[in-house]
């Protein structure tokens, strides 16, 4: 079987009717590019949401007391004994790191106003490594590990009418219900991009926070940061072994935010459904072309078969012709689409005013993000391939079953 000949025939047949082939491939190109744009934007915003959630919220993994997930109370704070901690650090190596945290709600008071706020006990260097919060500093300086001072969000500062160097009072509930109270001068003011955090954020050095809540150096939970999810999953298994014999567990961020995961999945699925509808619509159009291409050549096929060409070779040729149109369309779509996506990936489109505010409330940056993840491209290829395979059944079936004599006489 001479594959080259078959391909050559198939290819040449496509160009017998250049206009028709181009329009058909063009329709695929159209669908692919639109689908790419939509998928990329969707995935881009998902990636952004997840990234924010990881860097500012949960980290890739968390080590917590098994009861903490249901009831995030300081009562379930813990300490890792030395040999476990050493083993953990060795396990994480250079690319992953552990960030102990103390987190609790308090009442924060300024001169005359009081507000609910969130105290987060941090290790400044590690925190910065995780989410670069030092870039958001607008006034004052970054905390040191041993400071007895705070950094607060600009929104909170405004609500409490406090400025740099003023004193912040915090009152809250500590370990086992003990009163936690403290007065701290404001060392720095942060303008956090996530508005709802900006309105209630108080950063305190970890040691001080642990002391404030009477936790004796314990952490409420540990965040584990890795550089990729794959690494995080690998590390998770190791940490599980390490934690055997304790009351602790290690959770993946997907376990910590199942609602977010499902929400993003729902969004992705609805996006995919819309793209699929478009593809099906285009597929019927392609079918019309393929139908015509097949029927108009019945006499020619009849002659070929009566001259001695085997039917399955003919069928194969038809099959390849159809697939080629698809590949042409999808290929062109990806080739054209990729630079566009690449450009917008590097130069995101700023959002218009209304959407901009809306998006900032959810902690996202007011830009339209585009993702370059391979799945975006793969989905187009695979979907189109499957639809094309379905379409090819017609010409293939026809080649294998059409009556020769009838068509010879035309």
């Amino acid at each position, binding site marked *: 079987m001479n594959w080259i000949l078959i391909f050559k025939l198939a290819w040449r047949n496509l160009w017998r009717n250049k*206009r*028709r082939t181009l*329009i*058909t491939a*063009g*329709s695929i190109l*159209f*669908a692919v590019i*639109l689908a790419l744009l939509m998928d990329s934007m969707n995935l881009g915003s998902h990636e952004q949401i997840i990234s924010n959630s990881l860097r500012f919220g949960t980290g890739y993994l968390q080590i917590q007391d098994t009861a903490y997930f*249901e*009831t*995030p*109370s*300081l009562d379930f704070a813990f300490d890792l004994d030395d040999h476990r901690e050493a083993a953990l650090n060795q396990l994480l190596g250079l690319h992953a790191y552990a960030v102990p945290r103390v987190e*609790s*709600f*308090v*009442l924060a008071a300024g001169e*005359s*106003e*009081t*507000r*609910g*706020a*969130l105290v987060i006990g941090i290790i400044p260097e590690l925190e910065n490594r995780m989410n670069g919060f030092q870039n958001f500093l607008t006034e004052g300086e970054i905390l040191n590990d041993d400071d007895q001072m705070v950094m607060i969000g600009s929104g909170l500062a405004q*609500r409490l009418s406090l400025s740099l160097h003023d004193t912040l009072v915090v*009152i*809250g*509930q500590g370990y086992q*219900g003990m009163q936690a109270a403290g007065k701290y001068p404001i060392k720095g003011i942060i303008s956090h991009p996530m508005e709802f955090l900006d309105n*209630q954020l108080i950063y305190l050095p970890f040691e001080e926070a642990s002391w404030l809540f009477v936790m004796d150096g314990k952490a409420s939970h540990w965040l584990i940061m890795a550089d990729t999810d794959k690494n995080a999953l690998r590390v998770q298994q190791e940490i599980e072994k390490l934690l055997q014999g304790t009351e602790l567990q290690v959770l993946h961020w997907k376990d910590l935010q*199942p*609602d*977010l995961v*499902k*929400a993003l*999945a*729902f969004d992705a699925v609805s996006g995919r*459904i*819309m793209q699929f*509808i*478009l593809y*099906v*619509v*285009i*597929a*019927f*159009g*392609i*079918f*019309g*072309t393929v*139908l*015509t291409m097949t*029927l108009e050549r019945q006499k020619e096929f009849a002659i070929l078969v009566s001259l001695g060409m085997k039917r399955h070779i003919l069928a194969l040729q038809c099959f390849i012709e159809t697939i080629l149109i698809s590949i042409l369309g999808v290929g062109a779509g990806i080739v054209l689409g990729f630079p566009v996506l690449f450009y917008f990936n590097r130069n995101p489109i700023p959002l218009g005013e*209304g*959407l901009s*505010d*809306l998006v900032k*409330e959810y902690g996202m940056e007011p830009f339209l993000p585009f993702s370059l993840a391979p799945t975006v491209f793969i989905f187009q290829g695979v979907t189109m391939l499957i639809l094309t395979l379905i379409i090819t059944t017609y010409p293939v079936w026809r080649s294998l079953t059409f009556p020769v004599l009838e068509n010879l006489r035309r």
Partner: protein
Amino acid sequence: MRTLLLLSWKNIWRNKGRSLALMMAIILGIAAGLLMFGLVAGLVMQRFNGLVENHLSHIQIHHKDYLREQENKMILPNPEQIRQGLEGLPNIKGYAFRTLSFGMLASGYNSSGVKITGINKAEEEGISKFKDNIIDGEYLDESLRNPLLISQRNARKLRVQLGGRVVLTFQNLEGDLTSAAFRVSGIFRTSDSNFDDLNVYVNQADLQELLGENEAYHQVAILLDSRDEAENIAGLLSEKLPEVDIRSWSALSPELRILVEQGGFIMYIFMIIILLGLSFGILNTMLMAVFERVQELGMLMAIGMTKVKVAAMIVLETTFIALIGGVIGVILGLGIHSLFAEEGLDLSGFADALAEFGYDAIIYPLLEAKDVGITIIMVFITAVLAAVIPAIRAVQLNPAEAVRK
């Protein structure tokens, strides 16, 4: 002209397979488009109603600086005057005065920052369906001292149950911190997780006592007959009551306004995209139909059919195919839509996910006659536009050459 119509109609069926394939594409595209339309519109309406009926209402009145500063001491200056101002205004279904405080909710296990809303049950009845969200317990049981409504999420976080004790701490009107114990009277769950995390409800009288002023109100929520009146009535009220801040729902929740405005917009874009995709198929099909009939078209022009009539014939053929597909597509779409319109589309599996976005698990799709009408018009326009090129090609033929081919 009768024969032209007849001819165009018959020409469609010359290549049944191809015409049917194209019609199928149009049918599916339109049906799917309408369904998505309905679902999205339904989602938007649901979110809107959820917010409005549960706590936003159509118009809210606050102290001039309250929305910006959100301080407990910013109470409404002249509640009586406001009540009088509201009397006799048209289109008002009801209103409720609310007392608010920002503070801390704490149990033995945990604490959380919350917004405390002190409500007047009688007034709330007229404007809010909030109490339908109560899944356990009572709606501020009078037999308890300081009854409180807490969300399911917070109840878990703080490890409290019905009858359990929690402490609310907040600043009173003097600026002093005050604390009081409350009993959990009921547990609620709305479709909006964020809302649930941030809100608790108590009796207005209890909260006012703690704040230190019996006539302390922070907010008046007004429900109208129709959401479209909101801007107008807010304007009317602003004139009557100049010293307070009066806002309609669209000003209070830009998120909602955008949702309502852009939800429909996005669906129209989707429909247009589908139609653009279809136009490729239409164009190709009609071009093939023209080129297969070169001799015949030449003959028609030779015997005296004007170019205009020939072009019209092509356009008619295209339009017939598109309209048949479009109308059947609409019928199919409406048919499936009506299946779901009663019972709603049950997405319970995604219930938690939807709640994250603020939606209920059951979506009731919504389609208006105008949506259907606009769809059909768009199909028609697409057909006519797609027919232009084939029609031009048809009349460009030279009759003498064409017949001889």
